């Protein structure tokens, strides 16, 4: 290595000039590397954006990044499987910094009836002020208003459900459920708001009322089904999860989103693998060109390599020289490729409308607009893979060049 650094300038000069000897070939190879790197980064950003959207939607449906509930609740969302509202240590832990949003929630099975129809639904008791960050429901109101306080007396139902019940905004409906003593709990509500969701199933099944109103109805004052929390970034909830789990009272279960919905977790975990596979596949396509370029470059200057050896350049320096030539090619290609990726992703930051294929997207749980997500990790990954594997694939041609017999090489025509 000491030798290498000593001769670095010589080797660099040779490598750089040799690189531009066959401009056409170098240009073609640079084009291939640039486009390959662009495809790695651009497609990865789109993929990430899409999956990000799916995960966000999925988490909004749970809802929350972390849920606190009775251990039986997820299997049996019965009113008896409730917990105390946040208090004591847990309350302190929930409040200990301002950034995140949390709320007490109620969720029970119920029957909703208009004068014409009745249906089984999920009756959800919410704290309206934090709902924007938890499910985004306030943004989905299509008619009327959203609930305004924890003791609002109104009811918000989905457009689809309204249609099924043959009811509409301003009409009264009856909601019927059970209190913990198995007595019927029922009450009339006025439909104050109608929402539209991305998924029709939600519109049909989720019915929202204010938390305190439901507590009264179900005779569970002071108790709730769940406490849900939304942190800044769903990717990074582990620390918060640990802290909340510590603070939670006994007999209460604390779960992060990836344990609640394992499908989402699998999707999340597979993403990094997908990205790596994608990057490596593109690299493999590139590597054929790269090896071919180097083999040709060596072949064209066999005599020169013989000469350099004859003059006393060690075989190892010849390997370095050819590797450096390959590295220069890769670095220039990477530079252009990264630049291309940046300038093509930038204008798409406001979203790439894919509504032409929106139905397929909706089936996968994603919206019709993709927001490409360019992460440092992916960019670094693509660059590192190209440089490392690029150098690796260059070693063989470089080594073979260094093993040429100088006399025979010098006399090649």
């Amino acid at each position, binding site marked *: 290595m000491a030798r290498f650094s000593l001769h670095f300038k010589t080797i660099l000069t040779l490598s750089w000039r040799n690189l531009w000897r066959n401009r056409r070939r170098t240009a073609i190879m640079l084009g291939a590397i640039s486009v390959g790197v662009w495809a790695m980064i651009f497609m990865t950003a789109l993929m990430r954006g899409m999956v990000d959207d799916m995960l966000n939607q999925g988490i909004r449906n749970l809802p929350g990044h972390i849920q606190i509930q009775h251990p039986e609740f997820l299997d049996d969302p019965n009113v008896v499987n409730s917990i105390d509202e946040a208090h004591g240590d847990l309350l302190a832990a929930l409040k200990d910094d301002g950034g995140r949003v949390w709320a007490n929630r109620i969720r029970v099975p119920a029957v909703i009836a208009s004068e014409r129809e009745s249906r089984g639904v999920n009756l959800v008791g919410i704290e309206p002020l934090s709902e924007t960050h938890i499910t985004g429901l306030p943004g989905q109101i299509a008619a009327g208003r959203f609930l305004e306080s924890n003791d609002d007396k109104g009811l918000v139902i989905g457009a689809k459900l309204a249609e099924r019940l043959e009811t509409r905004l301003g009409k009264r409906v009856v909601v019927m459920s059970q209190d913990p003593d198995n007595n019927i709990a029922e009450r009339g509500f006025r439909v104050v708001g109608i929402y539209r969701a991305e998924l029709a199933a939600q519109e049909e099944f989720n019915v929202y009322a204010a938390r305190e109103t439901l507590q009264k109805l179900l005779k569970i004052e002071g108790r709730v089904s769940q406490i849900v929390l939304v942190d800044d970034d769903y990717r990074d909830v582990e620390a918060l999860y640990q802290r909340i789990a510590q603070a939670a009272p006994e007999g209460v279960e604390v779960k992060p989103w990836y344990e609640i919905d394992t499908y989402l977790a699998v999707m999340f975990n597979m993403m990094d693998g997908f990205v790596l596979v994608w990057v490596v596949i593109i690299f493999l396509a590139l590597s054929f060109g790269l090896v071919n370029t180097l083999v040709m470059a060596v072949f064209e200057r066999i005599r020169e390599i013989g*000469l350099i050896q004859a*003059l006393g350049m*060690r075989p190892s320096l010849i390997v370095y020289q050819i590797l450096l030539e390959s590295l220069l090619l890769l670095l220039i290609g990477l530079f252009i490729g990264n630049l291309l990726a940046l300038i093509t992703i930038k204008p798409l930051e406001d979203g790439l409308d894919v509504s032409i294929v929106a139905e397929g997207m909706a089936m996968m749980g994603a919206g019709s607009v993709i927001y490409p997500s360019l992460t440092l990790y992916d960019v670094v990954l693509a660059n590192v893979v190209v440089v490392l594997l690029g150098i690796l694939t260059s070693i063989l041609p470089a080594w073979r060049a260094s093993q040429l017999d100088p006399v025979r090489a010098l006399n090649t025509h």
Partner: protein
Amino acid sequence: MSSIRCRQLCKTFKQGDEIITGLDHIDLDIDEGEFVCLSGPSGSGKTTLLNAIGGLDTPDSGEIHMGNIRVDQLERGPLADMRLRHIGFVFQAYNLIPVLTAQENVEFVMEVQGLAAAERAQKARAILEEVGLEGMEDRRPAQLSGGQQQRVAVARAIVSHPDLVLADEPTANLDSVSAGHLMGLFQELNQHHRITFVISTHDKRVMRYAKRLIKMQDGKIIGDEAQES
């Protein structure tokens, strides 16, 4: 370092089914500071002998000693180092690195040897002037005539004052004035710096400068005599 001793050197080449003799039991001693010319018809083994002495090609059998070193037994790396530090080469056909200028070609060996940039540049310029290439330092080989290229190669071979210069037909592309000038330069380096010269040539003008003339034929030495110069 530069006394050369060859014992029973043999080298054959295979060309298809034919076996060609390159060197046939060569015994040769060259002392430090000698000025030797190898002559002989084409195919007599001059280049093969120079390559063997310079450690470019290994003989099939026999020994080559340079000082205390067994050249024929060195590994590739140390062999490369020996060429770099002790031998200046002028090859018969292909001499220059096309992507480097005349001056860079001359500097190349010094650069690999690890000389400082300023010293390199100064030496390279002086030697290029010496071989009559002043003003052509920045030309690439393709922009030089055959004779000029040859002179760049000679300049590179002698610039760092090696112990031994092995020159294969150094005047092949030179007019008689340049050839005379070059031989004068060789002679001066030989006399003042005790650099050993082994030169293969068909050129009578070159042979005149030799203090010792070796005649080769079919891979054998058929004549070896001292000359008055």
